[in-house]
């Protein structure tokens, strides 16, 4: 037998995550999630280090590559994958993790390189890292916004075009670092005041949110699943911007609500909570795998009036025509509003995808309008900020589908506030 307490090199674990992300092209978020599950037995401090280092290295990739390229003879893009990943994660520690001494970073990097049998490159890695650690790197001095905020140039350009320079800077700031966590009280089960007391008792800090009585901003907890109030179904995590969807719907008790692309189910559950057990919410999505996520939420929140159905929203369902009082069309989009929550999304999405997505959205919207009863209300929403997927779609709904726009809410992401989001409600008069 070998000893129970094992010395585990957290940096080697992060390196493996980064290498797997390069090789397999899987989403880094999922890789990190898996690795934290696998190392669930590690102390919280080590787990937090793994998470912060892996997420941060991915999030700041453009910035890190720029810094490395300034001090290295070999360009980052021409390096061996292992050397590239070791340098990126090491420079991240030097520049962004002030608690780690630079000398330790260099030593650990050299050890990793040697252990992976690149002995001839230890001198190179050591040299580049020593040079970088002896410089004071001030990010604020980097004028190129794409480099400073590690954001692909076309997205920077988009932000400026859609929201103006001033707002764009806020949007860029909010794309790096941690995002606030908002929760929605399950008002069918508990009052916001009671929930606040419960959470405070569990050691969570709870802040009220202006204008939304049932929403709070929470911090100071490690894992949601450790909180009794969460497991009891007294609240859900949902961004403030997303909560506006069920608000705009103006749901009344006893209504039939359809959510076309429901997973992971936040808006469906919100609607079901507003119905307080009356009426029904039909939550649809394209695969049973996606619906599984909603199922977890249904049982946790103890919702009786939510039904699930596997259905492809881009295909017409004749049986649903003229049969719903309310329709939620929260559709697949480029996600430019939630870049701060999904660390490698910004590198994956391409500008040419936007038109394809807009076309898919129109296809689904045509169906969505059909399912609405006369006098019914539909909310169209996306977690993005492009005109093709927001204002132009609203025009399409009015002009081509003949619905009347009631209200519109546009959120631009800000560092200490909600994500970027678009939501508009429409009424079917005919």
């Amino acid at each position, binding site marked *: *037998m*070998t*000893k*129970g*307490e*094992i*010395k*585990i*090199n957290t940096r*080697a*674990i992060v390196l*493996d995550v980064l290498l797997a992300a390069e090789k397999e092209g899987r989403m880094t978020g999922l890789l990190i999630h898996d690795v934290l599950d*696998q*190392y*669930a*037995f590690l102390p919280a401090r080590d787990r937090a280090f793994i998470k912060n280092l892996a997420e941060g290295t991915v999030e700041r990739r453009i910035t890190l590559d720029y810094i490395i390229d300034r001090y290295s003879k070999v360009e980052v893009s021409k390096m061996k994958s292992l050397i590239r990943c070791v340098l990126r994660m090491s420079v991240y520690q030097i520049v962004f993790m002030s608690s780690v001494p630079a000398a330790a970073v260099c030593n650990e990097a050299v*050890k990793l390189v040697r*252990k992976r049998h690149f002995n001839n490159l230890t001198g190179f890695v050591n040299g580049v890292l020593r040079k970088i650690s002896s410089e004071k790197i001030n990010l604020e001095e980097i004028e190129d916004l794409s480099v400073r905020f590690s954001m692909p140039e076309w997205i920077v350009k988009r932000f400026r075009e859609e929201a103006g320079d001033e707002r764009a800077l806020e949007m860029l700031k909010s794309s790096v670092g941690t995002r606030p966590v908002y929760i929605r009280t399950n008002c069918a089960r508990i009052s916001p005041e009671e929930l606040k007391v419960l959470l405070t008792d569990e050691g969570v800090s709870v802040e009220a949110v202006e204008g939304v009585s049932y929403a709070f901003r929470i911090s100071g907890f490690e894992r949601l699943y450790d909180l009794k109030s969460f497991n009891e179904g007294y609240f859900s995590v949902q961004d403030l911007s997303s909560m506006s969807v069920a608000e705009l719907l103006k749901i009344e008790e006893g209504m039939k609500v359809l959510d076309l692309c429901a997973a992971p189910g936040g808006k469906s559950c919100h609607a079901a909570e507003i119905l307080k057990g009356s009426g029904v919410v039909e939550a649809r999505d394209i695969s049973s795998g996606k619906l599984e996520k909603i199922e977890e939420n249904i049982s946790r929140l103890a919702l009786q009036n939510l039904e699930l159905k596997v259905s492809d929203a881009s295909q017409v369902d004749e049986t649903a025509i003229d049969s719903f009082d309310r329709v939620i069309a929260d559709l697949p989009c480029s996600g430019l509003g939630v870049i701060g929550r999904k660390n490698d999304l910004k590198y994956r999405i391409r500008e040419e995808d936007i038109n394809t997505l807009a076309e898919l959205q129109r296809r689904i919207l045509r169906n969505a309008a059909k399912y609405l009863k006369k006098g019914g209300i539909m909310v169209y929403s996306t977690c993005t900020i492009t005109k093709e997927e927001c204002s132009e779609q609203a025009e399409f709904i009015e002009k081509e589908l003949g619905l009347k726009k009631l209200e519109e809410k546009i959120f631009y992401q800000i560092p200490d506030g909600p994500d970027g989001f678009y939501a508009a409600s429409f009424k079917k008069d005919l």
Partner: protein
Amino acid sequence: MAIREVRELGDEILTKRSKEVKEMTPRVKELIDDMIDTMYEANGVGLAAVQVGVLKRIVVMDVTGEDLVVMINPKIVETSGEQTGQEGCLSVPGKAGQVTRPNYAKVLYLDRDMKPAELEGTELLARCICHECDHLDGKMYVDLVEGDLVDVHYDEEEEEE
């Protein structure tokens, strides 16, 4: 002193039952000495004879670095309690996994002079007694692991510093 080759998971011998030792012979003595060297050399805390390819009921253990125990024909007669924690095995290099074991074990055995002896252990020692005695019956800890086996990156150099 001789280091023997440690058999690894997948080697069929690890699934076989080891046989009782009937008498002490020079060959058995040499085997025991080699097992001790092999265990220490590999930074292990326990080793069963089958792991060096000999189907005899012999175990060597040292969980503290100062308490070497040689057990011949060991038999666990009592266990109690429960502990859940990480363990690894010299026959499954570079891996570890979470295993639930008794927190106390009492074992009867013959010592190097073939005299009856007994040993009680808790925590790591109890875990090691159970792990090694399983080897003698062809059982591996990987079948008991809760969740997945994880990769262990040993930080050998850190210890030299």
